[in-house]
Each structure stands twice: as C-alpha cells, then as structure tokens.
C-alpha cells in the first residue's frame, strides 16, 4: 500500500516536473533585466521553502518525540532533516550560481545566505550526531534536543541579521507582498514547481523513513539472536 503510494507520488512528481520544465524553458520568456538566468528561481525558491518546511516539521516531530516517546516521530524527524539538508544545499548552490551572474560574486554575508548556511551546518551536525550514537533511545533523545536548540538558533540568526542591511532580493510572492512584484505567469510557475519539488521531497522522506523502520527491525532481530 505504502510502496504504491510512494511510486504514485514519484510518478506524479515526474510528470508535473516534465510539464514544468517544458513551460520554464519553452513557454516563459526571458526576464527583462536578468535574461535567461532568472529561471534558476524556479528551483532556488521552492528548494528553500521545502527545506524550511522540513526543519519546522523536524522541530515539531522532535518535540513530539520528547513528549510521547514514540520512535516513529524520531525516525520521521531524522528522515525529514536529511532530505531538507539536501534541498538546502540545492538552494545554496543554485543561489550562488545566480549571484555569480547578477551580483558578480559567489557569496556575501547577507542574512538569508547566512541563515541558510547556518541551517545546513547545524543539521549536518544533527545527522553526524545520529551516526555517532548506537543506542536507539539515547540517539532519539539527544538528537531531538539538538534539533530544538538548532531550530531556535536559526530563528535568532535570522532575526538578528534581518535587523541589518541585506543584499538579497526582497519577497516576491504575492502572499507576502500583496502582489505586483512578480509576473502572474511566473508566480504560477513558481507554485507549480514548488508542488513538484515538495512531492519529490515527500517521496524521499517516505523512502527514508521506511529504511529507518528496517534498521529498527534489524536491530531488534539482532537482539533476539543475541539473547537466544
């Protein structure tokens, strides 16, 4: 049942993505000021939002694990963080390539860039911590604690650097600006590609969670084998 759902999700994401790529490259015109390079936004922004949703979900799942002690929350949190880190890296790399063309530099210590990088560093630490602990209960508890600390730290980084100047383009989506900052056709495209990337991310998370369950099964079978 679940396997079929994952396959269906992946296929749907693939179809949507193919349609999106066709529209992005062949239907939408070049942007007036930036030329062809602006098309990176269709992956840059959805990857960023997917990552942020993932970290937020991981925070909730970690709190849920700490409150209820169910291992499902823990493995789901680990899977979500791993996939989010992948999409955050996509976000940073595509952004960097865009910046090379438009700003003439690969990197600047702007607040969005800084907080994105801090996110990747903290949650890579989270994944490393999980590898360093063998005992499942301890691993779940400690990594949940780190996740809570990490998420709050990211908020502080975001807020603190937001007070200072920024080089990054401001928000363009009409839910934040009330419209007028982006062409409706392009905005629609952003949402469509966000849907595609989110579907891919969910499929990856489900596959990863499944692996965590397998790992737990192996662990318990090993214990039985050792005890017998």
């Amino acid at each position, binding site marked *: 049942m679940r396997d079929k759902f994952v396959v269906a999700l992946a296929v749907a994401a693939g179809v949507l993505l193919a349609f999106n790529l066709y529209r992005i490259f062949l239907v939408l015109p*070049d942007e007036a000021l*930036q*030329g*062809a*390079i602006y*098309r*990176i936004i269709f*992956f*840059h922004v959805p*990857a960023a939002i997917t990552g942020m949703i993932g970290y937020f979900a991981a925070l909730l799942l970690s709190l849920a694990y700490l409150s209820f002690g169910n291992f499902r929350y823990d493995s789901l949190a680990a899977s979500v963080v791993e*996939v989010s880190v*992948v999409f955050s*890296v*996509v976000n940073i*790399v*595509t952004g960097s*390539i*865009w910046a*090379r*063309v438009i700003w003439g530099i690969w990197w600047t210590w702007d607040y969005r860039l800084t907080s994105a990088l801090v996110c990747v560093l903290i949650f890579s630490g989270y994944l490393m911590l999980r590898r360093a602990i063998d005992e499942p209960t301890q691993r779940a508890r400690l990594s949940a604690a780190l996740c809570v600390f990490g998420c709050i730290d990211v908020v502080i980084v975001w807020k603190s650097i937001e007070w200072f100047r920024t080089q990054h383009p401001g928000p363009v989506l009409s839910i934040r600006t009330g419209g007028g900052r982006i062409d409706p056709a392009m905005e629609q495209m952003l949402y469509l590609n966000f849907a595609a990337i989110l579907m*891919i991310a969910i499929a*990856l998370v489900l*596959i*990863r969670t*499944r*692996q965590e369950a*397998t*790992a737990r*099964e*192996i662990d318990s*079978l*090993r214990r*039985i*084998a050792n*005890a*017998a």
Partner: protein
Amino acid sequence: MDARNFTFMFYGFLAAWLIVLLYVISLARRGARLNRELEQVKQLIGADRASEPARLEDRSR
C-alpha cells in the same frame, strides 16, 4: 536567450539535479544494504530456531 546567462543557468540546473541524484543514489545503496542485512539476520535467527526451537518458544511466553 542570452548566451552567457544561459551557460550559468545550465550549470545551475545541472548542479541542482546532480545533488538530488547523488542523494537518491546514496539512498538506494543504503536501502539495498539494509535489505541485505535484514535477510542475513533473518537467516541467522531462522538457523537458531531450527536448532533450538524450545528456547525461543519459552521466550515468547
């Protein structure tokens, strides 16, 4: 399309999909390894069960 821009756009898309692809490959490899391990452990337990059925039944009670 603007040629210089286009090259960088191409790099951007390439990089994005390469990263996702690398992750999917690592995911697949880890999945295969886990399945193999599961089979091994199951066989191990199956062998145990064949040799000492009584003890395992005792444990389940």
